[in-house]
């Protein structure tokens, strides 16, 4: 096995029936809802699923669905975990460990129904006077951090100083993505916004205003992955997996090697491009996990789509907006579509919809989609390249 190129495909892909605020379902029920939807999407007999990947208990999900799998993956590296699951699943399928994998993700991020542990940054988990010998507990929590909102963007002012990125350009990220969300019925927010609207929204953590921070929602998604060979047996259009990558950097944001660039993004995406054998010009559609407005900026540069310092103007000038040369975050992203906490699954879902030609705000002629995930605060990364082109014989 030389690479994972064209070894496997996503044949079933679906999100939870509802998205946004779902007060009557636990996080676990949402896993099941998404899984059943993905199974029905491709019409597979659930007994043909012999692999399960999830950040929750694989046993709980397998047992609930009446499956005794041959292969499991419980990798939990934050919101990019599901991109990593897809990569591991493709490798498992390619090497014969199993034939068909269910990847499932769901969270009750907004209503917190049945969530067993606090989300990173939950106030409840940071009660005053708490004594903590953990690594972040000794060297970050003591300074009043409150989860991703107060940590993820820690390098942005430095990035601005080094590259000349402006506050207007940072604000242009949610503005551009809202243009996509405007035609996506399932997006939580779809009204067109302006730079002024962003500046006038409440300051959350300077330099980030409310509209530069992701939503907090309930929801999930699931995928059915099988061999590229077998993918033809399904009625759905296969999203062939062309390239994959993964990496990790620092467990705490203050110890990143350089806070103006993600070493994990670079390592993961480079591997995915090499494996896929595609160039940046071949990419018709791009998803970059956007928990905060700076992530697409870091992503465009660390993935190599633009040169250092060019991402802000690239977005501001409309290149990633509808009609632009590089359509990005076409569901509206975590900033407008949905974000239950671990957004990576939704990014994959949109990539699959786009290569299938079934997206709400479809880009014309998409063949190749690049999907970039992040986990933690630049802690981890995962990359996937999809195509709808049949493998050449």
């Amino acid at each position, binding site marked *: 096995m030389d690479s994972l190129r064209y070894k496997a495909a996503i044949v079933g892909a679906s999100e939870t029936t509802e998205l946004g605020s779902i007060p009557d379902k636990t996080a676990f029920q949402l896993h099941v809802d998404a899984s059943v939807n993905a199974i029905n999407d491709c019409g597979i007999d659930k007994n043909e699923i012999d692999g399960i990947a999830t950040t929750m208990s694989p046993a709980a999900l397998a047992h609930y669905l009446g499956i005794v799998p041959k292969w499991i993956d419980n990798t939990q590296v934050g919101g990019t975990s599901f991109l990593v699951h897809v990569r591991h699943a493709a490798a498992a399928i390619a090497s014969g460990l199993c034939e068909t994998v269910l990847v499932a993700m769901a969270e009750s991020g907004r209503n917190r129904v049945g969530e067993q542990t606090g989300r990173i940054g939950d106030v409840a988990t940071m009660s005053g006077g708490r004594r903590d010998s953990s690594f972040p507990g000794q*060297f970050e929590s003591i300074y*009043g951090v409150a989860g991703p909102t107060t940590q993820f963007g820690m390098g942005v002012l*430095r990035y601005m100083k080094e590259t000349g990125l402006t506050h207007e350009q940072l604000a242009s990220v949610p503005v551009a993505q809202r243009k996509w969300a405007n035609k996506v019925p399932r997006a939580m927010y779809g009204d067109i916004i302006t730079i002024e609207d962003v500046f006038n929204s409440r300051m959350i953590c300077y330099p980030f205003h409310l509209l530069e921070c992701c939503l907090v929602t309930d929801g999930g998604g699931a995928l059915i992955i099988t061999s590229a060979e077998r993918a033809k047996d399904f009625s759905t259009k296969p999203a062939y997996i062309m390239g994959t990558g993964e990496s990790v950097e620092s467990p705490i944001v203050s110890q990143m090697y350089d*806070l103006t660039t993600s070493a994990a993004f670079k390592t993961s995406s480079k591997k995915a491009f090499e494996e896929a054998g595609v160039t940046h010009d071949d990419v018709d559609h791009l998803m970059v996990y956007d928990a905060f407005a700076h992530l697409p900026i870091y992503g465009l540069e660390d993935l190599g789509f633009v040169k250092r310092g060019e991402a802000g103007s690239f977005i501001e000038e409309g290149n990633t907006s509808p009609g632009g040369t590089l359509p990005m975050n076409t569901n509206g992203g975590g900033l407008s579509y949905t974000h239950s906490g671990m957004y990576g699954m939704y990014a994959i879902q949109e990539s699959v919809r786009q290569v299938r030609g079934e997206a709400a705000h479809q880009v014309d002629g998409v063949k190749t989609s690049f999907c970039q995930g992040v986990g933690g605060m630049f802690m981890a990364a995962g990359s996937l390249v999809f195509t709808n082109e049949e493998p050449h014989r």
Partner: protein
Amino acid sequence: MSSGYNKPIPVPTPESDVFWEKAKQHELWIQRCLNCDKPFFYPRMNCPDCLSDNLEWFKTSGLATLYSYMINHRPVPGFEEDAPYAIAIVQLDEGPRMMTNIVGIENTPENLILDMKLKVVFDDINDEIAIPKWKPA
């Protein structure tokens, strides 16, 4: 110092106890590798560059520059009276970076200029722990 200290309290471990013991004496100590001579932070058993365990603790100059920061408008419990407060990364003159708070100056974008010079100070939160913070030098 207050018995009603309501912010998270660090608990030293075998790796970090020198750091916190020296902080209690209002000195900022970090480690250096005696094999490749590079200073580093956070406390570790092995050099992050060469994995040597031939390390030493040394007293830093207590000088740094402001590398980057955010200003939090939604305080966590214990920080209500501080908000809006900066959570900053400083770069020690010796090289390594660490997270901190900036004191002795109102935490506004106008006041907090990247690369401004800073000097370490210590906040005695109880009899055992002093937390390093930084003020304009």
